[in-house]
């Protein structure tokens, strides 16, 4: 077993035990790459929580965790997961694009399209549509 796999053994075993799909663990150029798909945010969070036990400041660069939420059904409810502020809903999938609406923290919005890893198209209960940064969405 390599040193990095040793160092992050608990992160790898957590990813396995919570059922991350298509889990890939690969070491390259001094970085341990761990990737796969989670069914919800809680699965993904458990892996990151485990990393927090080893690297409390989340600044390690010898591990790269790329766990994405698996394909969801259109219309799936998503919870706005900002720290406190409103979430910008934008016209296009870019932070340079105009803000067309805002969603409050803990508000439920609905999935229209998983456009990319970073951006999803959503609709609010009021019928406002646009793109939001996926980092601020929680899937139960």
């Amino acid at each position, binding site marked *: 077993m390599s040193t990095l796999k040793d160092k992050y053994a608990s992160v790898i075993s957590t990813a396995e035990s919570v059922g991350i799909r298509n889990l890939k663990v690969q070491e390259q*150029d*001094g*970085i341990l*790459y761990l990737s796969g798909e989670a069914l919800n945010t809680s699965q993904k969070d458990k892996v*990151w929580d485990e990393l*927090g036990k080893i690297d*409390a*400041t*989340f*600044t*390690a*660069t010898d591990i*790269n*965790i*790329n766990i*994405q939420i698996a394909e969801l059904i259109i219309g799936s409810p998503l919870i706005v997961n900002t*720290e406190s502020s409103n979430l910008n809903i934008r016209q296009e999938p*870019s*932070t340079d694009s105009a803000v067309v609406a805002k969603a409050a923290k803990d508000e439920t919005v609905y999935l229209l399209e998983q456009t990319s*890893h*970073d951006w999803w198209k959503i609709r609010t209960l009021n019928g406002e549509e646009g793109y939001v*940064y996926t*980092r601020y969405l929680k899937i139960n």
Partner: protein
Amino acid sequence: MKKVILTSTLAFVFSLGAISCKKEKTEEINPSVEAEVATNETEDVVEVNKVDEEIMQKVEDAVKDFPTVKVEDVDGVLILTGEVSATQSRRIKESVDALNIGEYQNNLVVK
């Protein structure tokens, strides 16, 4: 006998001339080869010492919501600096890791 000595002396002188000519030729070739190598090295260095623009843009987008965080390109190495909370640091790493950018330096200071 004199003739033989003269001939061999001449042969010796000629061969010396031939060697020195050869030497000159070699010296003539070498500088241009060195120049070529040097040019290539310079080009390589320029390429290596710059972070890909697309990567810079993506990382800048990922940290846009954290005004205390700076993304820098120092001699081709992408460096994150600034003060953040542990929660913010985690969100930043989640976003940056999702970009699969490979090696970078995370110099964020967690308060």
